[in-house]
Structure formats: C-alpha cells, structure tokens
C-alpha cells in the first residue's frame, strides 16, 4: 500500500502559517500528490495562498474560533471532514501547544492511534515514522497497523520548508458541528511577552544555561551573551523546573528543538532529555566544570572550567570587540 492522501494541520500565525506547518506541507508533497491542509482563524484567504505555495491543493478552513482554545473545535471539524470525505492515510500535526491538543482530541474522537515526537516520515509501502529515543542516540521506526487515518505529530525542524511554486489552495469551509461539555475552555486575555532578538527556534546562535549557573539571577549572563551574539537565550529543563526561567526557553525533548549555527551550553551537564533538542546544531560549544559531563561527548569545542569565570570573560571579550 502506498500513501495516497495526506492532510496537514497548519497553524495560523500573524496572518501566515508557522514555520513548522510549512515544513510539514513541504514534506507531505514528497509523499503524496493529494495534500490538503486544515486551518482555523480569521485569515483563511491569506493562508490559502501560503498553503498553496507550499504544496496544498485544498485548504479546509474551520474559521474563527471566537476565543475557544483550538483543540476541541478543530478536532471536531476534522472528524466531520473524515466522515464526509473518507479518511486520508495520515493526518500530520505540528508539535506545538495547540497541535498536541488537536492530535489528542482527534485521536480519541476518531478512535485512531497517534504517534508523537516524530522526526522522520517515509513511504515504505505505507508510512514509516522515526522517533529519537534516549537522547537521540537511537532511532525507533514505527508504523500504524489497522485502518487510517494515523495521526502523526511531528517535531519542528524535522524537514526543510521549501515553496513548490504552487497556486493558492482551494478554500473549503470545514464546520465545527455541535459541541458538548468538552468545549468549555475559553481564552479571556492574551499576554505577549516582550522579546528582543530572534526567536529561539530561528536564531543562528543559541546560548543556553543550566543548573551549573547556581542561581536564578545568573541567567542574566546567558541573556547578555545571547544578545551580544545576536542570538537567543535557551535553558535546560532543570532550571525551568526550578522556576528560574519560563518554559518557553526550554530546549530539549520537553521543549524546543533548535538547530543553530552554534549552540553554547553553559553549566549544562547534558542530560539525554536536553541533548535530543540541540544535537542537530551545526556546532556545539560547552562550558562545564565537570570534565566527564556528557555534554563534552558531543561538543565540537569544550571548555572545562567554572562558568562563573568563563562566561563573564566571554561577555567582556565580546563587548571589547564592539
């Protein structure tokens, strides 16, 4: 059995689509000639031209959600599409806050399995998914058995976003249908936190801090170094768990996947949970006082030393360069 149809859930962002959504569309069209996209929000027409450019022929538009969290209404609309048009071979969903909600809801609603943390997807007489395990030292390959659609939740940066030069996708309305008690989660207010510099996932330089910083206040050094290198500041799970920095800075299995030109790990020992989120970086620099820290096994350049001395010296050296 080869793959005939693929649907891709594409997430709206500032009138366009998230980068991960474009990565998924780009890869989907290498697997199937019939790629449809599913989106929501107020900008269906604009999104249709972007989705078409990246390979979708049809855009199912759920429309405005009027403050509802996307999980329930979008999953409901997709379930209705499956009932109306038949099941595609697979539904691809970006790994994101809302993407995971949609995938979970849809899986239970359709009674179909879901595979998450997917970083590779190929057609080997049916879809085969790849999942990094144990800090990315091993890759598990899996496939769905039984009837489709299999729901595949794909991590950011797994594929390259490339426009196909396609024309705008045809927009088809995808009504939500009647919802029950499960649909009560409403957004009452949104807070946008100020960010200077590039996004963590898109930065060419990422400077990350871990437990070795010793205390929450020292994270300011990470932010300063990141700023001087025109990069973004990341964090290990340990210091996010400790409440030093918000979850949005977290790099790792739980958290973001980054592939910058250089990743500078400061006071991060290199737990497998962290490594899987950054081992795809082009270059890795590590500063750690423990010469046996696992991070040194994957670092292109490691400094065995006290992060409280090396990092301020690095900041001073960068400042001196202007």
């Amino acid at each position: 059995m080869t793959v005939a149809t693929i649907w891709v859930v594409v997430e709206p962002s500032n009138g366009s689509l998230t980068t991960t959504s474009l990565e998924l569309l780009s890869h989907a069209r290498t697997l199937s000639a019939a790629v449809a996209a599913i989106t929501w929000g107020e900008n269906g027409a604009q999104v249709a031209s972007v989705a078409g450019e990246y390979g979708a022929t049809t855009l199912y538009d759920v429309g405005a959600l009027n403050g509802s969290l996307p999980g329930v209404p979008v999953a409901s609309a997709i379930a209705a599409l499956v009932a109306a048009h038949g099941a595609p071979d697979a539904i691809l969903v970006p790994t994101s806050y809302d993407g995971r909600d949609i995938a979970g809801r849809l899986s239970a609603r359709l009674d179909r399995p879901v595979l998450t943390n997917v970083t590779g997807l190929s057609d080997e007489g049916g879809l085969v998914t790849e999942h990094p395990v144990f800090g990315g030292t091993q890759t598990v390959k899996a496939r769905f058995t039984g009837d489709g659609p299999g729901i595949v939740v794909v991590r950011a940066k797994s594929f390259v976003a490339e426009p196909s030069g396609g024309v705008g996708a045809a927009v088809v309305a995808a009504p939500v249908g009647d919802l029950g008690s499960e649909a009560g989660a409403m957004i009452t207010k949104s807070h946008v936190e100020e960010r200077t510099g590039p996004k963590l996932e898109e930065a060419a330089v990422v400077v990350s801090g871990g437990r070795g910083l010793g205390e929450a206040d020292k994270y300011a050094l990470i932010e300063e170094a990141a700023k001087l290198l025109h990069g973004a500041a990341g964090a290990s799970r340990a210091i996010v768990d400790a409440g030093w920095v918000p979850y949005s800075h977290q790099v790792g299995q739980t958290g973001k996947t980054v592939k910058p030109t250089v990743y500078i790990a400061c006071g991060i020992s290199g737990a497998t949970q962290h490594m899987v989120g950054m081992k795809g970086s082009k270059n890795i620099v590590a500063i750690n006082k423990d010469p046996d820290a696992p991070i040194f096994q994957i670092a292109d350049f490691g400094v065995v030393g006290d992060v409280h001395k090396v990092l301020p010296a690095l900041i001073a050296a960068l400042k001196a360069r202007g």
Partner: protein
Amino acid sequence: MNIVVCVKQIPDPAAPQSLDASHNLDRSGKLILDEADTYGVEMALQLVDKAGTGEVTVVSMGSATDVAGLRNALAMGAAKAVIVSDESLRGTDALGTAKVLAAVIGRISPDLVLCATESSDGYTGTTPVQVAELLGLPSITFAKSVAVDGTTVKVDRQTESGYDEVTAPLPALVTVTAGVVEPRYASFKGIMAAKSKPLEVLSVADLGLASETGVAGARQTITDVVASEARAAGEKHVDDGDGAEKIVAFLESIKVL
C-alpha cells in the same frame, strides 16, 4: 473539591535506559514517581487545602510490584491511590492508556483532573487530552498557574509568545508545566501515614476494557530500532584563564564572529 492527579511510576531517568526484546522500555529496575507528576500532586494539595474540603486521589497504570512512587504521592498528602495493573497492559499505546485512566477517573467523578504535560519516559504528551475527550471534559494544557473560583478553573496557559488567561467550567482537566508550584518533600509523619492509606489495585477485567489495551489494542508497531548518527567529541580545553579567548577563536573559525 475532589481532585484526581494522574501519575506514572517510571524507571529512574538518571539510570541507563534500554528497550527490551519486544521494543518496550525496560521497566524491570526500580521505579520512581515521575518528577513531572509531583507538580500536579502539589498543585492539587494546595487547591484542596484552599477549598477547605475534598481530597486528592492519585490514579496510575503500570506495574504494581513496586509502588514506592505512589506511596511517595500519598506521603506528600494524597488521600488514596488507585493503580490499574495487569500483565496484559504491556505494550498499551497512548490512547489505550487514556481509556484505562478515563475508566478509573469516571468512577471517581472528580471536580478537577490534573496531569503533567507529558511523562519523562515516554514523552507522548497526548494522553491527558485523550482522557479529557473520552470523559467529555474541557481541557487546558500547559498551565503555568492554576486557580479555582467557584465552579470555574482559571489557568495561565503558556503560548509561543507569552501566555493566555484561559477559563473552563468544572469538571475539567488541566495539565501543568514544571515549576507551576514547588513540590513539597514528604515529611516523616507523611511517610508514616502513607503506609496505612488505601492503595487499590485494579485489573483490566475490573474495568471491562480487555480488547482495547495491550499490544493487540495498540494499532501501531515498532518495526526497527537503529543507532542514530553519532556526533563525535571535538577539542576539550581546560580553562586556565584563557577559556573565553579560546571560545572567541572558535566562534571566529566558524565565522559566527
């Protein structure tokens, strides 16, 4: 205010991990309470405390030969624990797990269900929302703060660009991120009290779910496990006051500076 917290006993993440012959995670060693779940337990205890009435029940699925992790949650202050344990559950996928947990939670009918955003061993991250869907509950994931006001749960939910204030009517399910609260350490008194708190072990037959769980119910199969492309270690320099200088030189060599 009755709260169910879904928890998982996992192999110690600090210990070396491996897959067994049937590609399941080797769980034969010592099991601990997933640290990610301690935030939910603490959050639940604080919410019940604030409400002044009700209790916290922890619900789990997995091996019941070692229940130290569940006793840990009871020692923190949960009133009772329920674990569904059955040899036939080996190989159960995320949806099958959700069906088992939903069946147990449905019997308890709590006001609120709390879960971690994902477990620290499997990282699937969809089970809580699947549970919510099966129970017909609204869900709010990735909470960085949780408050209950009458019959409404109010959550600050992490977003890509900041956070959203989200509300849902109770009963509801909420997943909490690490750091939402500071989990307490069990006191000596708590540890002693936990020994006599109820810990119920249920089988799949007790829940009437046999065909939907285990390897047969999973509908997904691991076809292969291969070594990933290894990344070799590069140069390692012992800092002698010149570490920063060496890093600058390295950044120059890769044209970042």
